[in-house]
């Protein structure tokens, strides 16, 4: 073996050790979550800590599905994540089409107003948003979240960028064939923007699935709770039943993990353009 080869083996080894170690630090909490969820309530408080449960049990999972509202919360989370994503993408791509492909008076000025609203963080306006929603009787309704997604300046901005890059000759050809704006939008522009749409869609799904502040403010009816909300309320109610809380947390992570596995590419580009809700 040459010296260069040995060096290469050593640096590969260091890479696996360092990478594995940091990954382990990141994963220990998850390991702890899974282990805890498989313990009985009594085993939670054993000293020394049981790294592997002596009597693994699915009792926590049985109990959590029997709790009122938990299965409903899973359904609500799916419903919310899917519907808000559809509305957001639809509304944003329509606006982006108008801003990028239709010439009208005030186009640029209106777009600048859209962008300016991005300066105000959501954390600053959630109180008036609640006030207005409750005056319009939109609180405690999952469908009200759809209305809130009508305006998403970030998605509009990203889609407009994409659509600006689509050559107008496609559109001119469609017009010659007798197409109107609706046809051009659905048949030409949307298919050509599908990459950005997928990225924004994945980000929106994850944002809605994991969102906490907005549902916390808008929803007080237990029947309308999403997974983060029900976990939050279990934290208050069953604050010491960590097997239950960890089982619930794990259940809330699995769907988003599955989506990630199938759409890694879009997740990565989405995170890189900064479309993630902090």
């Amino acid at each position, binding site marked *: 073996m040459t010296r260069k080869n040995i060096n290469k083996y050593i640096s590969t080894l260091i890479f696996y050790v360092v990478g594995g170690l940091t990954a382990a630090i*990141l994963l*220990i909490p998850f390991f702890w979550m899974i282990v*805890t969820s498989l313990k009985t309530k009594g085993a939670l408080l054993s000293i020394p800590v049981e790294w592997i449960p002596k009597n693994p049990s699915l009792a926590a999972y049985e109990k959590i599905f029997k709790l009122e509202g938990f299965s409903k919360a899973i359904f609500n989370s799916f419903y919310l994540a899917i519907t808000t994503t559809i509305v957001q993408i639809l509304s944003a791509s329509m606006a982006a089409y108008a801003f990028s492909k239709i010439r*009208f008076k005030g186009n640029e000025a209106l777009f600048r107003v859209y962008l300016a609203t991005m300066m105000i963080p959501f*954390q600053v306006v*959630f109180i008036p948003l609640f*006030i207005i929603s409750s005056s319009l009787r939109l609180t405690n309704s999952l469908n009200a979240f759809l209305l809130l997604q009508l305006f998403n300046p970030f998605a509009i901005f990203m889609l407009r960028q994409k659509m600006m890059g689509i050559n107008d000759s496609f559109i001119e050809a469609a017009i010659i064939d007798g197409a109107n704006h609706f046809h051009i939008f659905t048949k030409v522009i949307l298919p050509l923007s599908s990459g950005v749409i997928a990225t924004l869609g994945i980000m929106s799904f994850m944002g809605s699935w994991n969102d906490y502040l907005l549902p916390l403010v808008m929803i007080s009816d237990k029947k309308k709770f999403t997974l983060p909300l029900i*976990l*939050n309320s279990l934290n208050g109610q069953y604050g010491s039943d960590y097997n239950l809380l960890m089982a619930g947390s794990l259940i809330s992570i699995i769907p988003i993990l599955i989506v990630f596995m199938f759409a890694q590419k879009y997740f990565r580009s989405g995170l890189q353009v900064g479309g993630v809700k902090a």
Partner: protein
Amino acid sequence: MQKIARHNSFSKALPFILPSLAGLIVFSLLPIITSLIISTSSWDGLTKLTLFTDAKSFFNNFYIGLKNFRDILKGDEFWKVLKNTLYFIVLYLPLILISSIAVANILNKKYRGIGFFRVLYYVPVLTSWVAGALIWKWALSPEYGIINEILDLIGIEGPKWLQSETWAMPSIVLASIWKDVGYFGLIFLGGLQSIDPTYYEAAEIDGATGWRKVWYITLPMLSPVTFFVIVISIINSFQLFPQVMVMTKDAGPNGATQVFVERIYKYAFKYHKMGYAAAYSWILFVIIFIFTTLQLKLQKRWVHYDT
């Protein structure tokens, strides 16, 4: 960019713009105006709001001018909240920069199995803050948690973490690093991959070694990304919320983890001082605005743009 000249009227654009325009007016502009008005009132959030139906009676009953703003800035609590937030930033910012640059370097290597590592780093990013905070709250349990158990194995007696005034905020920082490092690592990875390899080749010809290459090429070339990460991290730090709410329900021992959004939420929905909460949120906006503008000004001194 040329637009289609034959279809050039607002009436053609309106159907496409209408949904987002309605959303903009009702759920963005209206809340901003409402918030400004409410912030000058003593409205409690429980009395029926007559602002939209009978503004005159609303003003007669609740208008108090800038009293909320004065009260907030004069009180001790605001300064404690600001101090807590700055303490979070001082701990969080250097740690997240170092750890995410390290993660980016690991992810940048082309070894077998790197895809697996990438997925591992993203898992905390995908996890909701509520679940992540619950996991950490339990992992940091002084007697029964895994963190103190591990510290015990290497002979360190762990602190009481969230139950200790000293350690409550560092605990929040720890959980936040865990949650964010994969995200910022990915951002830095993008930065690393965009550095032109010829710089390194040229430096090697000149005899530059490992650390000098890092210091004179990698860090300056990464500075625009570093700048972005710092700006985003600081904005996010001022908006800390779920981790504080879930991990320390009553904002820690002696208010050690009181932060802005947590205060705003509690004033609005627990203490029923809507006007006060609205004023608080505008002060938060001004602080974020000042910090961000300041950084944009200072960036000229240290951010290196290649083109």
